[in-house]
């Protein structure tokens, strides 16, 4: 996988991609089963998965997988996602997504929007996991706390699910050449210069092993 390729840059390691898809898969499966539990009118989800009782356990287990992948993802992305002064400049121009921006600082591994998505998943993911644990046995805690858990669980879903749609769009149609970063790991050099210019320059300065200038 990481052999040199003409005009291509190896952006994500295999571990990164596995962690990403564990996180994404568990998150989406929990979202699907969770929506099935939330909306009675969507009982086709339960019908597909073998009933509400089975779906309850699937939801709980995907939540557990999500919890562990969140830990792994956070360790992996923490440094990349720390905000830096350039992020403000990027944000003031909406990253050039909404109008023509002429003064965008060269990007790091992730831009300010992607960092925001990471932090949203981190913060609301923790709330989801903790509230989910309480909802697993609401009888073990004071009832007021249990009720807050149900409410915060739903609020966090609202945030992460909406962010996810943005992420899905920007990771696919919105930014051609991105999605392959999470499949085989490679992006074109042009892509990296445009999106991750600073990251690419830093890496090449360090003599980045797998990166390859054409």
């Amino acid at each position: 996988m990481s052999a040199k390729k003409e005009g291509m840059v190896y952006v994500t390691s295999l571990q990164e991609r596995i962690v990403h898809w564990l996180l994404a898969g568990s998150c989406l499966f929990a979202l699907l089963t969770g929506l099935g539990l939330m909306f009675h009118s969507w009982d086709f989800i339960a019908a597909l998965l073998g009933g509400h009782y089975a779906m309850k356990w699937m939801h709980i287990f995907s939540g557990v997988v999500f919890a562990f992948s969140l830990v792994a993802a956070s360790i992996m992305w923490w440094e990349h996602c720390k905000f830096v002064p350039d992020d403000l400049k990027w944000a003031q121009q909406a990253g050039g997504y909404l109008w023509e921006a002429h003064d965008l600082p060269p990007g790091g591994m992730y831009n300010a929007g992607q960092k925001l998505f990471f932090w949203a998943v981190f913060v609301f993911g923790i709330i989801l996991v903790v509230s989910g644990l309480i909802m697993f046995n609401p009888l073990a805690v004071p009832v007021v706390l249990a009720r807050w858990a149900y409410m915060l669980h739903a609020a966090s879903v609202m945030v992460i699910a909406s962010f996810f749609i943005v992420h899905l769009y920007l990771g696919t149609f919105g930014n051609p050449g991105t999605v392959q970063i999470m499949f085989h790991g490679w992006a074109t050099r042009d892509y990296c210069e445009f999106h991750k210019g600073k990251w690419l320059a830093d890496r090449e300065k360090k003599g980045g092993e797998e990166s390859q200038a054409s």
Partner: protein
Amino acid sequence: MTEYIKLIDLTKCTGCRACQVACKNWNDLPAESTGFTGSLQNPADLSYNTWCLIRFDEIQNGSGMNWIMRHDACMHCEWPACVKACPSPGALVRTDTGAVVHDPNYCIGCKACTAACPFDIPRYSAEQEKIAKCTLCYDRITDGRKPACVTACPTGCLTFGPKAEMLAKADARAAEVQGVVYPRNPKYRTNVLYIMPKAINVAQLQHTNPNPKMPTTILWWKNLFKPFTLIGMGAVAGAAMLHYMVRGPHEPHEPENKEGGE
């Protein structure tokens, strides 16, 4: 179908517990082994197999000692928090009789109802992985009979009848004994009502909620965040499509495609 009300007149209860036994009997609920807890209350709490319970309270008000026996069971809320919280269709249903019934066939044992109920009524069994509670003897009342507890009560403490009739009766009785009808929150009505004796404030009794209402957190969960999960995802998906159509994919612009270049 008529809506019914069960009225519990606390000025009349003698604590005979015929209701407690009748409930077990009609609903085929096994007895439980209990111990003496220093009170006549036995068993100590509601359970998966005990859907109604006489609670004993000794209350010192001014000069006198009041000994209160209270028939405690599901209040059959008009706008039940338990039903609102339940994720499994059919597991908890408010019927047009006013009875809120649970169906063990559909209960998935998630326990959400136990947290939502403002009266702390549903009881969970880990062995069964289900909850149980009073059904207002739905099977009896749809057959023209009264709930088992009401039928058994020898003192007239428990009465049962069509809603309008029972509301009038409750008001008349409260006036007669100078007590109050509980609960009286017009925003959270129940199909079970109490006549509280004059000397007693409901807050002094064990296992009561002086101000029963739909918990705000449950309301926000189901009426705000639940719809806005879909609204949020839909709005963002719409915005993404619009962005794609108006701005197109985010790419370095090829100078030759741009008028005047960069």
